[in-house]
């Protein structure tokens, strides 16, 4: 099996996948791509339909025996299937359901909000030629908005609300446990990856959240996440953002 992982700074979706790769000890060639410059779109594998049309926004790409895979939670599930050691999802079907449901909420509610606030505070700088190569019309439209610094006050406020709600859920979930799903799982990676960078941007969401605070420290210190963070090329990877998933159009 030949694997190449194209990843950006260890934050958001790249962090989830890098940490899953290290946790499961999957051998892969690592290739750094500056997602904040839109560099992913010059890769040949980015033109594959299931990468070009990924609705995650600017995320990592794993090429496995010639097939390019996108969407960080599902790549992490794949790595969990093919790798070694403790599972990154619980064994019980109900607990697995809860994990997938939790991640879906992160993907659909938290990630768009975090990426929007992250890009607002730390604007990605893509050059125009790169943007022309983007296959997905709606992703290009999101890039154009952000490149032009056109942010909508209502969406910013809604995004802050979504982050507050996510922090509330994390705090409640940790009432009786160290890790979100009982054992260390993809849910911890995905939630940390989107929320760690939100602490300075939406500070009020994390006030009086002692369990979340110590969970942040635990996840950060876990060997897989620490190894992923060691690949950072910027002093503060949690401040590195690129265009994320779209904020729900309706319903």
């Amino acid at each position, binding site marked *: 099996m030949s694997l190449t992982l194209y990843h950006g700074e260890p934050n958001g979706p790249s962090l989830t996948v890098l940490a899953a790769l290290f946790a499961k000890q999957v051998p892969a060639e690592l290739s750094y791509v500056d997602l904040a410059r839109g560099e992913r779109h010059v890769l040949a594998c980015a033109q594959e339909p299931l990468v070009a049309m990924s609705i995650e926004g600017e995320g990592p790409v794993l090429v496995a025996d010639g097939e390019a895979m996108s969407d960080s939670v599902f790549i992490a599930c794949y790595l969990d299937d093919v790798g070694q050691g403790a599972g990154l999802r619980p064994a019980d079907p109900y607990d697995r359901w809860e994990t997938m*449901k939790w991640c879906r909420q992160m993907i659909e509610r938290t990630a768009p909000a975090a990426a929007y606030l992250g890009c607002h505070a730390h604007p990605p700088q893509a050059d125009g030629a790169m943007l022309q190569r983007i296959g997905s019309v709606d992703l290009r439209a999101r890039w154009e908005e952000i490149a032009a610094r056109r942010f909508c006050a209502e969406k910013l406020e809604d995004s802050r609300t979504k982050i507050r709600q996510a922090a509330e859920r994390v705090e409640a979930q940790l009432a009786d446990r160290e890790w979100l799903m009982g054992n260390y799982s993809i849910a911890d990676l995905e939630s940390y990856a989107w929320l760690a960078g939100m602490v300075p941007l939406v500070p009020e969401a994390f006030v009086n959240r002692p369990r979340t605070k110590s969970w942040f420290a635990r996840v950060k210190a876990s060997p897989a996440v620490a190894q992923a963070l060691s690949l950072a090329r910027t002093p503060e990877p949690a401040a590195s953002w690129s265009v994320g998933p779209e904020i729900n*159009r309706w319903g």
Partner: protein
Amino acid sequence: MHSVTLYHWEPNANSGKPMLALMEKGVAFNSHYLDLLKFDQHRPEYLAVNPQGTIPAMVHGDRVLTESTAMMEYVDEAFPGPKLMPADPRDRWRVRWWMKLMDQWLGPSFSMIGWSVFVGPAVRSRDPAELKAAVERIPLPERRVAWSKAIAGNFGAEEMAESRRRVALGIRMLEDALARRAWLASDEFSLADINGFNLAYALPLAQPALSNDDLTPNILRWLRTIYARPATRACWAMGRTSMVERVKILEQPHIAAGQIA
């Protein structure tokens, strides 16, 4: 063996996904029909089961499950019967990729069109005070907005155009994928096909200019093959409204371009 109760609407979209998955697995379940157009899903009896007021919900013993796609994975893992997820990890990734695209990108575009032409008009004739009260009972703010828009017929031209663009592109993506493989995400029938059928079963009827035997032969082949499965027949027999009749378009052996106006 714990009993299974499924709270669902018509065999269609999110409700139809676990219905069809349970039937493919051969799992007997108590069917609890909720009339979406009468807002049964926001009544206190149902909110006691699922406080979010979203359909479907499944109760297995003392476990309550929501989120239809995650629920389908549970159905596949928790019960004996034919496997509905492929064994190969990369195939499994592809199943999940397609389900996400359909759940979060293509499905909402289909449903925006569906709600503007069907759900909105179906409820709009009701007493405005009753509708207002019904909308106020909706727990999720996003769903309140969606229902308000549907009732008022308040979809902007731009957002409708964007939904039509996505539907047209999504149809091409499905056709391309099904030209490569017998099934949507792998070489065997999977949850992606169950998910896709619930989204697309009436496609040649709803989007005749974009999907027919001339333009999208592989989509039509795929839909007819799924429709021929005993589980699909049994599932669609559970429908209570005329909505269920739409699937019969697939009984036509050939639907030519321009045949359905």
